[in-house]
């Protein structure tokens, strides 16, 4: 096993108690560089808790989070993250929103702004750099939010249901777009979602979580060839994975409801 590369992101026995409730049971997972991981599970399965612990905005009750072997437990700003809400500043232009990280550190330099413009141009928002967010559609706003995350130059990106508020057609387009960005930028992605289809479509591995207490139920490898097109949704392996994940999610629910 000595040939295994060092994992990009590693959780070791991470847990979290809220009062006396175990929101996240001791959880361990290793994620490789450049990997696309999706986390699915019903509400209360601890995925948001895990997300906040990795993001460093929530202190775990026990365990450690490492990036490149460095302990980053409880330290914010070590990974880039993005939520369902785009959280763009309405009084700032698209470009300023992309460069927000630098602005918060003092001032965005000319070079950083040029990099922001380039990012916007590369991903189809070049004509909108001087627009205010209110003038953009929901999908465009989420793209700006992702660019803001990319401009932070963090190797690990945490995305918490970033497309959850979009209509299903925009969402599909955004998934395709995200995969192209991921391929071009070579970042490691942890993507939290409710949507099983979305998880399988995007992921190298799908982490299925279940509630009471929140924990990892299983980790499934998705061996569908990339680049993935629409036809993936009807591939036998896709359906088989979907069936298995649904079994985890719904059977768990039935048994706990009956109890």
């Amino acid at each position, binding site marked *: 096993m000595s040939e295994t590369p060092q994992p990009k992101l590693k959780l070791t026995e991470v847990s979290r108690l809220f009062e006396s409730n175990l929101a996240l049971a001791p959880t361990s997972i290793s994620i490789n560089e450049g990997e696309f991981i999706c986390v699915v599970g019903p509400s209360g399965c601890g995925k948001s808790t895990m997300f906040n612990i990795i993001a460093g905005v929530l202190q775990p009750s026990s365990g450690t989070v490492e990036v490149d072997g460095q302990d980053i437990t409880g330290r914010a700003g070590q990974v880039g993250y993005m939520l369902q809400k785009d959280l763009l500043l309405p*009084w700032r232009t698209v470009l*300023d929103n992309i460069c927000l990280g630098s602005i918060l*550190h003092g001032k965005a330099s000319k070079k950083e702004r040029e990099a922001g413009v380039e990012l916007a141009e590369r991903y189809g928002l070049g004509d909108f750099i001087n627009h205010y967010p*209110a003038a953009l559609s929901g999908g465009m706003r989420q793209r700006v939010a992702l660019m803001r995350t990319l401009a932070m130059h963090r190797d690990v990106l945490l995305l918490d249901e970033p497309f959850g508020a979009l209509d299903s057609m925009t969402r599909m387009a955004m998934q395709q777009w995200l995969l192209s960005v991921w391929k071009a930028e070579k970042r490691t992605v942890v993507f939290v979602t409710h949507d099983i289809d979305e998880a399988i479509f995007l992921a190298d591995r799908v982490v299925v979580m279940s509630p009471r207490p929140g924990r990892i139920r299983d980790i499934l490898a998705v061996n569908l060839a990339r680049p993935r097109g629409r036809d993936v949704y009807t591939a036998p392996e896709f359906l088989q994975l979907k069936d298995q994940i649904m079994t985890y999610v719904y059977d768990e629910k039935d048994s706990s409801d009956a109890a």
Partner: protein
Amino acid sequence: MQPEKQPLWRSILYPVIAFALVISLWWGSVEYFQVPRYVMPSPGDVWAHIMSDYATLWQGFQVTFMEFLIGFVVGAFSGFFMAVLMDASKTIRGVLYPILIVSQAVPIIAISAALTIWLGFGLAPKLVIVALVVFFPVVVNVLDGLRSVDSDLLRLARSMGGNSWSIFRHVKMPATLTPLFSALKLSATFSVTGAVIAEWSASTSGGIGAYLMQANSRLNTSGTFAAIAYLAVLGLVAFLLVILVEYLVTPWRTKPVVPRWSTRFWQK
């Protein structure tokens, strides 16, 4: 939230028609019912009075306008500062909020009398009254704005490496501008009233409010109405001034793209 767009000629023409209608109704009824001039002067009488006492009225307009302007700016800034303090500390908020509420229950005119005793007949008591009028709505609205900033946004800003100053400067402060300006718009015309009330208590400065009092005590109805006309203009100017500043400071509320004159505009 944006008002329905209408052509410019219409948004100018309609108020002009409405204004002309009121003036002619006034003029018509004064003539028709043969109302004596000392009861109700006609618009022509008022105009004649303005022409004959032009210099004094213009002088008074400037005095009252300066009382409004300085008091308004002082009140707005101190209200803003107070809201920031109250947002920063729970203790300060807990102590000051009840005092603020009670202070609002005291009529301005009563405070005005006391201020004359403390501060004399000059500019100072007027500024305090005007500032007090603006102060409370600004505190309440700015505090609201500060507290309504999305906690996820603050968390994100912190995780992006913002310190408390840069987060205040770039995230919280701009979020207060919209509620701040709605407070300022509401209090603009009323702070002109505040200036007039302050001048009534006692004044050696000769503002429009003082002019009004003098004309009134001499049963000079034309003079009274001339002063009222000036005050109406003053209130309008005050309101438009706030609108203008709002337009310049918050371009994102009215435009889809940052204006070219802004330093935020990026020229490729």
